[in-house]
Structures are given as C-alpha cells and as structure tokens.
C-alpha cells in the first residue's frame, strides 16, 4: 500500500545518488573516486573535423587518434556557446551560461557562484591542478586603470595549483602548449588528482607559437600571405605571417575590406594557407598530447586515470567566407570529445547520438561514483557509453551565442586597438568614433549582454535572433563594409543535406520551424527563470583577447 521509500525513489533519478545510498554494504566495489585520477584536456578552437579520427584527410593527429582508439568517441558533441570562457564554464559547471552567470568577457571576481568540477572533486580528497595557456582563464584587463591584473576568479577557484603560461623574454605568444603539466604530473603522480590542461595554442593568430619546422609544414611553396601586399598596411614588413584576428576581422564573405571597400578577394590558395597554419597548430598540439600520454604511461598512471579530451569550440575557416568563431556555425560548435576510461572500457566505441558540453561534468562524477549536483543541467553519458536501454543523448541541444561580438567590441576591443596605434584606414578612422558611440549607446552599460539563441537536433538547427534589428544596426560587418548586412531573424538548416548551412529553410519548412522554435523558446524561458543575478555594481574585469 505504500510507495517505495524515498531512497528507492531517489535511485530511479540517477545511479550516482545510490552510490552513497542507504545500504553501503550492497556496493561491494570500492567507489571509483577512491583511486581514480582525472585529466581534462581542453583544446581551444579545435575543430573535430580536423582530426583524423573524425575523418580528416590530412595527417594532423596521430596521437589523438591513437588515444581515441582506446576511448569512447562522441561524433556529435555540441558546445553551449561559441566563445571560450562562456562555453568552458558550461563544461565546468554543467550549467547553461545564463544560469552559471559566465555570459560575456567581463567577469567580476565572484561572477559565478555555481559549483565547478574541481570544487566537487576537492570534497572527495582530490588534489586539483590546472595548467593553462588560454589567457581567457587567467588574464584580466582592468579597463579603468588599463592594466592587466590577476583577480583569482571563477576559473582558478578550487585549484591547488593554477599554472599559466607567460610570454617568454622574446615576447611571443602566450598561447603555447602548457608543458608545465608534465612537471606537475611527475611531482604529484602519487596523489589522487584532477588535472585540467587547457591549451590555447590553436587559437588565432594561427601557429604563432608553433616552432619550426612544424609551423610551415603545410605552407604552399612560394606563397606570400595576401595581407602583406594590401594597401594601407604600411610597415607591411612588420606584419607577421601568422593569420591573425586583426586581419581576418576584416574579411567578410571572403572579401578583405579596407576603408569600407572590398580591396581584395581571397583565393583558394589564401584559404588553403590559413588552413595549413591552423592545421600546424593542431599537429603541434597533437604532439603535446602524445608526450602527455607517453608520460602517463611511464608514470604508470594511464590505468588509473580517467582522461577526457574535448574541444571548447571550433573555428570557421572560410566556410561561408568567414574566419574565427563569431557565430554558432557547425565548424564552431561541433566539438571533439573523447573519454578514455581507466580500464579501457568500451575503448574504440563511437557514439553517434548528440551530446553536449554540459554532459562532461555529470559523466565524470557518475564514473567516479560521486553524486551529480542537483543543479547540473547536463546528463551523464555513461548510459550511452554502456548502451543502456533508453539512453539516447540529447535530442535537442541549446546554444547561447552570448555575447554578441559587437558587445565585446563596445567594451574594450576597439579602445585597445586605438591604444595600440590603430589599424584603420583614414576613412574608417573618421567614422570609428561614431561607431564606438553607437555601440556604447546600444548596450546597457552595466546590464546583461544581448545574444542569439539556437537549438540543434541531429538533423536540424534553428537560430533565432531575438534582437535582429539591433544586431543589424550595430553589426561589425556593417561597419567595415559601410553597408547594411541583412540579418535573418530565423535560420533553419538541414544538417544532413546541407552541413555547410548554406540554405535557410525557414519559409520552406514551417512545421520544423514551429517544433524547433517552441522547444527553443521553452528552454529560453526556463533559462531566464534560473538566470544568475548579474550584479550591477561589482567591479568588472575584462577577459582580453591577446
């Protein structure tokens, strides 16, 4: 006559809850967190489709491919956002950006109060360390004083060791590979640890920190980067060969704009050069992963370590005449994700169902027999890995394109550009102030940044731009082209027939639009309800983009 006990009911909610449930005797096996290390390898801007194991033709990733053979590989892993701090905080908290509060490149010291993966692992006796070369995780710019500071904020919280790469004596990019991970591992091999290795090497400027001979390994013989010969680029000899943001932020639909004019149209060779330098970054990163795996083997850690390798987000490499990661296109949000279990469980398995960044933390905790926090918004992937009945991944994944890049420009980027001597044509210079003013007036100075939202299924993607008019008005592309660039309020793509997202099917497939849109708005409303309070008066620091 009585319903099952509360504990039994709880068990139905998730196996993790039972791991420490009413009857510890029933759990004969030692919980995995007693003896399992965790290494999370997070690679910035890594496109899944530029790895051999995901079908890339170029031989960029021997080591990652061989790790993949011993791992479970997720073929459709989607990130929650297109920008590093936003997407990665969703991985570390298993919460959507608006829920954990990491919604822009501005951070207050305590912007994110949600629990992070290292925080929970520390409860269970883990020594936690991070070795990072993505400045997004450790560099903060104080716009008021114009200086870089180290506020010790949301990303570094809960780490016993927080290693960051620095510029060498000769300058050079901070975005190297975080090799201090090796020394840390040697020193701490006997501890139970969580190590987060975050590499920003692949990020633009492509291959800037890749040494010879790898840097030029995919260059076309005799090719000269197109920007070196372009008008206006006085002092062109100083210009680096590295494809940089400053160059590619002027490329719209494969036209290079200078002084509001398309002064150059990119050729196949140009695109192929950029891809080559990008791939050199992937290759060099792969060597680093290879060294890491070798070290783990030699320290006899491999069999007691759970290894998760993920890309934080990808990059556009000219697919629609765009570069970088402005938007939620497939190359940007479709990630590499593989999990190597200590006992090699399900090694070589490929999971086709759609999964998401939010799922990483619940999966790790679930494997370790640690309860998943109640406010986690992702799901453990173990049922999928183990092929349990009913395990289907995420039928819908929701993505926040948050914040708009224009919002970021309004905050600091243009200012910094000016301070650095500016790289603007005289005609642009004249209008720049006006544009900056427009940006500043368009966004609530201390409010929530605007964004776009998107929902993705295995077959379809819908993007909804709720503030279409404003976006069109403030668009960076509008500024550099001096022309209104129409923004669609909604875009619907069939990912199976049109993976390049070239044909917007909004008017042709109203039934799909209706279904996807209602899912998206439902998610949006529930996310708004759980939105982190964005405190207006806390001092904010900016995550720069060096």
């Amino acid at each position: 006559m009585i319903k099952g006990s509360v504990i039994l009911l709880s068990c139905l909610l998730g196996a993790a809850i039972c791991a420490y449930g009413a009857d510890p005797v029933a759990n004969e096996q030692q919980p995995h967190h007693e003896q399992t290390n965790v290494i999370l390898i997070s690679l910035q801007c890594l496109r899944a489709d530029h790895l051999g194991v995901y079908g890339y033709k170029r031989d960029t990733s021997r080591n990652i491919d061989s790790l993949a053979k011993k791992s479970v590989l997720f073929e459709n892993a989607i990130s929650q956002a297109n920008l590093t701090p936003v997407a990665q905080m969703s991985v570390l908290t298993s919460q959507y950006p608006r829920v954990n509060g990491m919604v822009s490149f501005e951070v207050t010291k305590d912007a994110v109060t949600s629990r992070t993966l290292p925080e929970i692992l520390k409860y269970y006796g883990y020594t936690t360390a991070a070795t990072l070369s993505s400045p997004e995780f450790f560099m903060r710019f104080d716009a008021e004083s114009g200086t870089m500071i180290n506020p010790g904020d949301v990303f570094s919280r809960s780490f016993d060791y927080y290693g960051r790469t620095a510029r060498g004596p000769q300058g050079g990019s901070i975005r190297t590979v975080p090799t201090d991970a090796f020394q840390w591992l040697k020193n701490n091999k006997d501890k139970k640890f969580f190590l987060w290795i975050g590499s920003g090497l692949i990020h633009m400027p492509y291959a800037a920190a890749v040494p010879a001979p790898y840097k030029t390994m995919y260059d076309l013989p005799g090719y000269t980067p197109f920007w070196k010969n372009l008008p206006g680029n006085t002092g062109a000899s100083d210009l680096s060969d590295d494809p940089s943001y400053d160059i590619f932020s002027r490329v719209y639909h494969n036209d290079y704009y200078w002084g509001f004019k398309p002064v150059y149209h990119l050729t196949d060779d140009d695109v192929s050069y950029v891809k080559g330098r990008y791939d050199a970054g992937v290759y060099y990163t792969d060597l680093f992963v290879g060294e890491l795996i070798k070290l783990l083997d030699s320290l006899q850690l491999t069999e007691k370590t759970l290894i998760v390798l993920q890309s934080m987000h990808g990059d556009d490499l000219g697919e629609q005449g765009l570069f970088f990661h402005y938007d939620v296109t497939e190359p940007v949000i479709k990630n590499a994700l593989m999990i190597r279990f200590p006992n090699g469980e399900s090694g070589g398995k490929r999971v086709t169902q759609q999964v998401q960044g939010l799922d990483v933390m619940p999966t790790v905790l679930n494997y370790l027999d640690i309860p998943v926090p109640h406010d986690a918004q992702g799901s453990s992937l173990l049922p999928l890995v183990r092929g349990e009945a009913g395990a289907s991944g995420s039928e819908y994944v929701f993505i926040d394109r948050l914040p708009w890049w224009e919002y970021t420009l309004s905050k600091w980027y243009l200012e910094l550009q000016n301070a650095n001597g500016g790289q603007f044509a005289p005609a642009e210079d004249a209008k720049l102030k006006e544009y900056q003013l427009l940006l500043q007036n368009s966004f609530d100075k201390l409010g929530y940044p605007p964004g776009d939202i998107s929902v993705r299924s295995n077959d379809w993607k819908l993007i909804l731009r709720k503030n279409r008019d404003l976006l069109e008005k403030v668009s960076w592309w509008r500024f550099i082209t001096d022309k209104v660039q129409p923004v669609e309020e909604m875009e619907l793509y069939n990912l199976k027939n049109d993976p390049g997202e070239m044909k917007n099917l909004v008017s042709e497939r109203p039934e799909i639009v209706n279904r996807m849109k209602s899912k998206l708005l439902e998610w949006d409303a529930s996310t708004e309800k759980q939105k982190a309070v964005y405190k207006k008066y806390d001092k904010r620091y900016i995550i720069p983009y060096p």
Partner: protein
Amino acid sequence: MSHNENQNEFDCKLINRREFIKKTAVGAGLVAATMAMPGFMLGKAEAIDLSQIPMKYKDYNVIFVSFDALQAAHVGSLGYARDVTPTIDAIAKEGFSFANTISTASWTVPASMTWFTGVYPSEHRLTNKFAVFNPPNNVLSNLKKLSPDLMTLAEVLKNNGYATGGFTGNAGVNGFFGYDQGFDTYFYEKGKFGSMGVSIPKAQEWLKDNGKKKFFMFLHGYDIHGQGIPEGGFDYRFVDKGYDKRYTGSKEEQEALREEGLEKGETTLREEDIRFWRAIYDEKIQRTDALFKKFLVDFEKTGLMDKTLFVLTSDHGTEFHEHKRFDHGFSLYDELIHVPLVIKLPGQKAGRVINDQVSSIDVMPTILDLLDVQMPEKAKNQIRGASLTPALKGSKVAKDVFFETDYRLYTFKRGIQTVDGWKLIYTMENKGRELYNVKKDPGEKVNLAEKEPRKAYELEQRLFAHFKSIGHDLTARRWETGLNPVYDSQAKPAVKK
C-alpha cells in the same frame, strides 16, 4: 504568584534539552509517571512479548490528539525533568513512545495536513495561509482547491464506515483550509486560537451518539501554543520567585517577541526571561495535560477504552531563544520539528520506547494499517510514509526524514536528517546551507557546511533528489521572499495598503 519551591530548585538543574533527549535513548521508563490513571494503571507494567501483540484492530476506534506546539523536550516520558505531562507519560508508558519523531514542518498549517494526507507539505500545498495574498483579493489556502486529488485520513475512514469527528482550536487547522475534509462533524471556533477546554466538551457531546458506532476522533487545542492563555490566567506555578516581571506571559508579548526575532534575527531576551517563558510554557503544558486527563477519566466511563486506539502527538515544537528567536515556523531546528508521538493499542498495558527516527508522515499509514481498513486505490498511491507497525513488533524502522517550511514567505527552508545524525537545512532564497552533527552537537550550534563539504554536498543532493522525486524540482523556480501573513494582526496593515 504562587511558587513551587521544589520546582525552583529543579530549575537550577535544568539541563540542556538535548541531554534530555539523549537520555531517552537509554530508556523512557526512567521518568515514569506515578499517578494513578484510570484504565492505564491496572497493574504493574510487565515485560511482555511484543511480538505476540496483535497488530490488526479492525473496526476499533481511534482518538488522535494533537497538543499543538508541544516540544518533545518538554515531555516527561521523553526525559523532561519537570513533571508537567503525567497523563501523556502514563499513556506513553503503556503504549509505544516514539522518542525521535520529526515533523515534516515547523508550524501548524503545513505540518498537521501531513497527518491527514500522508504527503509532504510541498505536495498537499497547504504551505501558507493564503494561496494568493494580494489584498483585497486574497484567496485562502484550501486542500480541495490546491490538491483536489488527495484523500484525507478521515475520508478513508468514513468510507470504511467510521463516524468521523474533529474538535479543534480553529486557526491553523480550521475548516476553511479544508481540515474538515472527510469529517462528519468538525468543530472550530472562528477567530480563536481555541482551547481544549472548549473542544473537549464538544467532543464529549459528539461521543454520546457516535460512541455507539466505530469512530475516528481528532482532538486538538492551542492551550500550549503562544497564542493560548489558560482559563482564569496564569498562576505562574513554575516562575522564579524573584523574577522582575518584565514579561507577564501574554499573547501580545509572545507575538511581539516573535516579530522582533523575525525582523532583527534575534530577540533581546535575558536568561531569566527565557526561564520565565519556559515556566509559562510548562504551566500551560501541565494544565493542558490535566484537561486531557479529565477527558480520559470521562472516557473511561464509557467503557470504550479497550476498543480504542490512542495516538498522541504534536504538530511542531516551539523556540525559546535556542537559536536566538522565539515562537515557531521560521526555522527547522530540533526545538521546532522534534515532536512526541505515542501510540497506544486498545487495551495495551505495557509498551516500549522506540528510538528509531521516524516522521510525522508515517502517522496516517500507521493508523490505517492498524485499523486494517479497505484502502481506496487513490489513497494507496498517494501515501508517502510507511506504517510503523513493524516497529511495534520490534523491527527497525529508522529512516532519513525530510522537512520544510515556507513560513509566511519570510523564508523557504528544506531539510534532511539522516539516521546517523547528520542534518542539513537548505535555505532556498539564499542557497544557505547549515550542516549539523546532531549526535555531537544536539543544540545545532556549529554549522559544519564548510568543514565537512563532502557531507554537506551529499546531503544537499539527497535533499534535492527527494523533492524532485515527489514532483518538486527545487531548481526549477525562483525563491523570492514576500508577504503571506498568518496572524490577523499582520494581515490588517497589509490590507489597508
């Protein structure tokens, strides 16, 4: 002011209430009632084989009594040193005394409905006085409107041919809330925090006719509650001789202290004031116990004693500055949710103390189980708790318990207490966490949430999983405090606005 010299001496020895509770773990028989009780002291309590006691009482009567606001620690059979509950103690000695019963809530409206529905307050949804408080368009909370699918204990019994009568002190258990659902007769004096001095005679009148049938009676009064004042005023029987009379024990003072605590987070009571208020409380308890004794003496004369099952309990306790505040509802500390629970089977002469931790949510399934009634499918599916009859036979029934309060929208708290003595109170509006090891720190003074992060984390997950499992995903809504008055004195200024 009259004094009891012995009692004053006793005051010096008043030990921490938790130590009383700890003593109960040894055995409740120690502080046994000595007074002769009709029907309850027919002979020396003998050690009997409990496994031989029948556990099915088909068509027997039930008298279910709620001594509103009676803190477990002030009950003699649970270890209190002052002899203020001789009648309750006598029944506890002959029946089963559950020494560790935790209520699902810390105030009347949500806590009492759990007995009658077998579900948590979040589920029956009688969590505040008003379902909508938007003066002048207020909507009073009502079980039928908020939870139309729930069956009440009285309804199940009525379906099984029972005469059902409720005789109450109104207020938190008044009929407008739907507390009358399933009762043939339900007495509550509108506008009152009524006394058993009024509800008992009404019950007795009803028994004249209905005592001939099989019956279920709910008897309740606010005599012990802060808003209850004994007939003829206090005689101050337990108050310190030299007390400077800063307080007189009035309900206005009670109310002012409650509001001061809510507003400032603490009251400005001195040690002697706290002793005074406990003395006042004890006088109320003793006088209520005497009223109940009178009821029993009369009931004995009906000859129904051996045909009647008794359940004595309380909906919640009360605070005397243990956590710097006064009254109840606003927190989930032990002084507010630890309640007495006594079950005496018909004709039972000897019982035992059961130290297993149980919940007030188990009361309904226990009564129905003992009465061996036909359970409608709906009621079967609804009930969350578990029958405690295995405990009566000596089996272990200890379990983790859950509790909650949304008191006046002043706060939203949810809590869990485990069998092994860990307790987590989670405050929804600020995500505040309090972790106590009640075995080592029965006063709940040292918050271990930071020191024992893993324990706090795991209990937090248990707590949220529990509420999710009963259909309340606590993460799915915003928790914003507001105004939802309970007492008329609070509602009036709000209405004027």
